[in-house]
C-alpha cells in the first residue's frame, strides 16, 4: 500500500503554468469548435437573443485562448526567440490603435497616435511586438479615467527605437514599483477600483523586450498617470532615418 503524501513535493510555478496552458487547450478546443459549428449551422435562422449568447460564448473562448497564450509565455515552455522579420513599428501601432478603438470609445478615452509618415523598421518578431504594444496601450486604456487621453508614439533616439505610451490615469502607487513586471502582480489601486486583469501584461512586455534586446522603463505618479517606454536598443540601422525626439 502506498499512502499518497499530503503535501506534494514542490512543483515549480512555471512548470504548473506550462502544464495548465497545455492541458486546458484540448477541452477548450472542443468548446470553441462546437460553438463555431453551431453559429455556422444556425446562421440567419436564430433569434437575436440566442445569437448574443453564442457571440458571448465565442468571445470568451477567444479571451481564454489569450490567457492560455499568456500563461504559456510566462511559463517554463514559453521561451520567446528573437525574430528576424523586418517590422514597421508605425504599422504595428496603427493596428493596435484600430483593434482597441471599440473599448476606447466605450470608455470615452482618446487614443492619440503620433507616428512618423515613413516606416520605422526594426528586426524582430511581428507577433511578439504586436502583443507588447497591445498590452501597453491596453493597460494605459484600462488604467485611464473615463474621458482620459492616451498618447502613443514611436521615434528613433540615437541608435535606439523608442516607443512611448502615456496616460493621465490612476497611476501606480510608489510602494508597488518594485514588483512591477512580476507575474500576477496587481497594484492595490487597480484591485480597489475593480479593474480586471491577470497581472501578466507587463511581464509579457518585459519578455518581448528581452527577446529584442530592449528595456522597459516606467515613469508614474499615483493619481497623475503613467508613461511606459519600450526602448529597443541598437535597432536604428540606417543612420539617415535617425531623428531625435525632443
Amino acid at each position, binding site marked *: 500500500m502506498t499512502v499518497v503524501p499530503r503535501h506534494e513535493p514542490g512543483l515549480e510555478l512555471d512548470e504548473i503554468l506550462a502544464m495548465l*496552458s*497545455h*492541458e486546458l*487547450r*484540448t*477541452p*477548450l*478546443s*472542443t*468548446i*470553441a*469548435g*462546437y460553438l*463555431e*459549428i453551431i453559429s*455556422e449551422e444556425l446562421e440567419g435562422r436564430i433569434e437575436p437573443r440566442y445569437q448574443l449568447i453564442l457571440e458571448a460564448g465565442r468571445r470568451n*473562448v477567444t479571451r481564454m*485562448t489569450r490567457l*492560455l*497564450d499568456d500563461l*504559456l509565455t510566462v511559463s517554463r*515552455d*514559453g*521561451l*520567446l*526567440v528573437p525574430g528576424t522579420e523586418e517590422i514597421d513599428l508605425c504599422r504595428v501601432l496603427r493596428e493596435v490603435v484600430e483593434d482597441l478603438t471599440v473599448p476606447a470609445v466605450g470608455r470615452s478615452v482618446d487614443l492619440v497616435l503620433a507616428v512618423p509618415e515613413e516606416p520605422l523598421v526594426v528586426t524582430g518578431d511581428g507577433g511578439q511586438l504586436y502583443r507588447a504594444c497591445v498590452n501597453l496601450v491596453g493597460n494605459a486604456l484600462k488604467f485611464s479615467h473615463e474621458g482620459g487621453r492616451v498618447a502613443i508614439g514611436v521615434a528613433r533616439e540615437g541608435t535606439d527605437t523608442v516607443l512611448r505610451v502615456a496616460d493621465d490615469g490612476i497611476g501606480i502607487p510608489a510602494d508597488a514599483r518594485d514588483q512591477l513586471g512580476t507575474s500576477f502582480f496587481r497594484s492595490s489601486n487597480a484591485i480597489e477600483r475593480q479593474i480586471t486583469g491577470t497581472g501578466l501584461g507587463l511581464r509579457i512586455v518585459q519578455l518581448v523586450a528581452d527577446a529584442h534586446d530592449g528595456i522597459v522603463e516606467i515613469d508614474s505618479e499615483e493619481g497623475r498617470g503613467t508613461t511606459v517606454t519600450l526602448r529597443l536598443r541598437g535597432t536604428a540601422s540606417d543612420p539617415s532615418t535617425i531623428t531625435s525626439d525632443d
Partner: protein
Amino acid sequence: MARILVAEDDADLRSLVAFKLASRGHDVVQVDDGVAALASVRSRRPDVAVLDVTMPGVSGLDAARQIREDPDLADLPIIMLSARAGTSDVEAGLKSGADDYVIKPFSPREFALRVEGLLERRG
C-alpha cells in the same frame, strides 16, 4: 472527397474534427492512439493523416517519424494537432515530418481548409 485518418485520444475533440470533415464530404476513419493510427495508415492508406501529438503509447510525433521512414508511406500528407504551443514544440512537430502543425484551440472551418489545401497541393 478524400479519405482522412483522424488520430486523437480525446473522444470529444476527435468527434468534432470527424464531424467537420465528414460534413464537407470526406470519408473519415477515427482512431484513439498512435498504434492504431499506424495500423490504419498501413492497411487503408488514407489521403491525409491527422495526428494528435500527445497520444498514449506511440505519440503523434513518433507515428509521423515511422510513417516518413516507411518507403510506402513516406509521401503521406500529415497534419499535426497539438495542445503544445511553444516555439520548440512547433519545431519538433515539423521536424518529425508533419506538413502542418495546428495549435489547439483551432477553428474547425480553418482546419478543414488547411486539410483540403494540403490535399490540393499534393494533387
